[in-house]
């Protein structure tokens, strides 16, 4: 991956990173770098996640009690901090996903109608 690739990628919308993190963790606990990778891979390298921005977000989610963290050992034997979804986080994910779907649906309808008119 080069810098040029990075420039063509989409920047994340405000507030969506939390949702993506929660969604990523639904498959089990993961460390920060793993989450970053997962988001990039799942989005087929479309999304730009600045790794640095990930950690304050993780910290925030942890403080709200939606995820919990534990130091552990990664698959290649490195020490890493593993995050996992709490029950409260699971509920929050459902809520946020619904909200997101409604939002994108509404935006899509508007954009769609405009496209039709235009």
């Amino acid at each position: 991956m080069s810098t040029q690739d990075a420039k063509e990628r989409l920047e994340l919308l405000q507030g969506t990173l939390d949702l993506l993190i929660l969604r990523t963790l639904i498959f089990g606990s993961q460390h920060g770098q793993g989450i970053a990778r997962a988001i990039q891979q799942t989005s087929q390298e479309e999304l730009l996640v600045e790794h640095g921005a990930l950690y304050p977000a993780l910290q925030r989610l942890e403080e709200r009690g939606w995820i919990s963290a534990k130091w552990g050992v990664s698959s290649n034997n490195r020490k890493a901090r593993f995050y996992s979804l709490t029950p409260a986080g699971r509920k929050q994910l459902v809520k946020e996903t619904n909200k997101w779907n409604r939002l994108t649906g509404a935006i899509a309808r508007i954009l769609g109608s405009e496209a039709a008119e235009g």
Partner: protein
Amino acid sequence: MFGRKRKLDDFTSEIEAHIQLEIERLREQGLSEDEARATARRSFGNVMQTEERFYESGRWLAWGHLSQDARYALRMLRKSPGFTAVAILTIALGIGATTAIFSVVDATLLHPLPYRQPEQLVSIRADLPGAGAQDVGMSEPEWQDLQRSGIFEYVSPTWFDENNLTGSSQPARVRILIVAPNYFALLGVKTQLGRAFNPQDHSPGLILEVVISDGLWKRAFGSDPHVLDKSVRLDSDLYRIVGVMPPGFDSPGRTAEERDIEVWAATSFYGTPLPDNPPRNSRFLPTAVARLKPGLTTAQAQSRVNTLVASLQKQFPGDYPLQSAWSLRLVPLQERVVGNVRQSLILLFGGVALVLLIGCVNVANLQLARSSARGREMAVRQALGAARTRLTRQLLTESMLLSLLGGIAGLLVLLCTKQSLLRLLPENFPRLSDVSISWSVLLFALVSSLVTGAIFGLAPALHAGRLDLTHALKEAARGSTGSGEQTRTRRILVITEFALSVVMMIAAGLLLRSFWDLQNVRLGFSPQNVMAVRTRLPSPNDPRNDLYSNAAQETPFLREVLRRTRTLPGVEEVAIGDTASIPLDQGLRELKVISEGQFLMTVEGRDTQGDLPSVVERSSVTPDYFHLLGIPLLRGRFFGELDDDKATQVAVINEAFARTYWPSQDPLGRRFKRNRVDSPWITVVGIIANARTESLAEADVPQIYLSLYQSASRRLAIFLRGHLDAAAISTQVSAQVQSVDPTLPLSGAQTLNETVSASLAERRFSMEMTALFALTALLLAGLGIYGVISYMVSQRTHEIGIRIALGADRKNILRMVLRQGLGLAIAGAAVGLAGALIVSHLMAGLLYGVQPTDPLTFAGVAFLLIGVALLACYIPARHAIRVDALIALRHE
């Protein structure tokens, strides 16, 4: 997780781990070590910023700011040691003194008495307002009425006495309290050893059991655990020890003597040695405590007691004549114990708080001066992007730190000097032993430190926040500092300071004048070279063992003591009286702990006295008493040796008594009698001049004197005049007295000058303390005005230089500077005088012989303060006129 703070270290190592993982992933994709590291770092973004965002997200930020501010403040304080020392010293003084007074207030006024549900405890006082008498005591039938009234759970009369205790390791004089058997149940306290009295006991006479104090148990019985099997002799009667009270238990009382009871004996107040059926009008029970029925308030109980009193008056009209208006008053026990010092304490606390406030104002002033000197620093910091709130907070932190340091210093000094400070309190101060540096006192010191810091830090801090940048930077460059607004604030502070010290000074001035007047009052008797030594004749329960049951038996003893003591070295004159005859004695009689020294009387030829008080002060004395005290005879004669039990009863009265009861007649030969069955008529044989033997503050209290040979007393005072050896006299007298009766203990040798001085102890205490606070206030206010004026002069050096260069008269300049200071002082004095008017009226009860609006004090204080202000301004003013025009201009 909630609430748990994550350390920055942990966060950093997580980021480190992330980058390592990323490097490894990239290496796996085939990048070189260096390329992988660079790419990983790039895709992570700014590590530092991430860390900062983590830091700011948590409570770490506030804490970080605080510790940063505190560190910075410490550095700043270290950099100006002079300012820091003065500020800390001022605050330490203020907080230390305030906390000291608070510890006394806390122990006396705020802490409930240490008994079970102390709010249910009351003291019962009986008054005869119609006869002008308060605290006349209670009779046994009245006690029984109260017991049965359903208003009280328990009622116990208390009767203080001193007794000779034998049967322990050494004979000792002990303070004994005779109470009802329910006394300890009433207070709700338990013994540490043995048991208390049986509250239901109603047997006649004295119950032959005693409870002793922990102190006596340790002192006289060496903490013997088998003390309960022992018997002790009180006077000549044998009592069994049934219980020992725990350490720290005190009977409720105003004075150390009243509290520090060593032996409690119980009786139901009838049966030998008391009358079998005590009459209703024989009020021999001096005072009583009671516990209200649960749920009753004092006010409710009082109204039910009033109903009871009314029905008793109807039932026994002979014992309760309507004109004397017998009434019973319930006083909360706490009030009874500390009531008399409340006003002084509040005054002192107010005074010391004012001093603290003045200290605050001074430190605020210093801070302001410093902050204008630091104006440039503040301006630069703001220009570089420091938030205003951050600067304000920085300055507040500095002030808080100063005041905390000051508070700690004050507290340390207080802890070190606690013992010597306690000695300043009058000995008779209530609850003195409870005064301690408790948690609440510490909390008070902490809170007052913080409040102090907030008060003196607020003005400078707000100023820093409102700094006009351009102005400040320009001004600072020119070397002159301070805005008009700041000067205004400083002036207001100085005016406040002056006003507060005027209030303090006037309060102190009024107290000083009262004290001065009292001390220089014409006594009407001469206390010089007179000593009084006390003794007490035993009163055994069995009248057959009583050697002093009446005047006829007592007189030979009195004469023998007089004869023997007269021969002692240096003694010129001797007389004996009952303890009521000791002039100005703040004794137990004054506290109405024992009922003696007053009686209810009827004057011959008058059915009712109308408005005249029928309770009068009386003492019994031997013939030489008046001459010994230098009280002049106006008419008639003094007592003689022949006025004994075989002769007719005679009395000497004072002028006030004569004028009150026989205003238009010759009192000599007139008769009066005590309102008791079988009391004989007493004939007036002499009139003496008024003397302030009852109270320094009252000039003409009607008084009667009876012959001790006719009206005996067991509590005696032996008066000796001459050039006495104060140290030896007590043993000399006791040797002589004990050669007459070896069982008699002697105590309380005191010169009359000491007695007179002791009667002023509480007044002296509040006067001295207030004066001390007032002087401190004056000093601080002087420093304050000095600071402001010299600051003003230094600010205007340039201007003054120009004036002088242009030929201004130096006198004019002096006048200009002084006028500035004078203006502040006059404004402060005016505000202060208005405040003092309010305060002086509130303290009217503490004054004697001077009006709360005493013009002399008010004017004197105002002039004194203005004088101090002028003096404080003169020093900077002289600097001003010595300004060298050249230097001042070059200053630019």
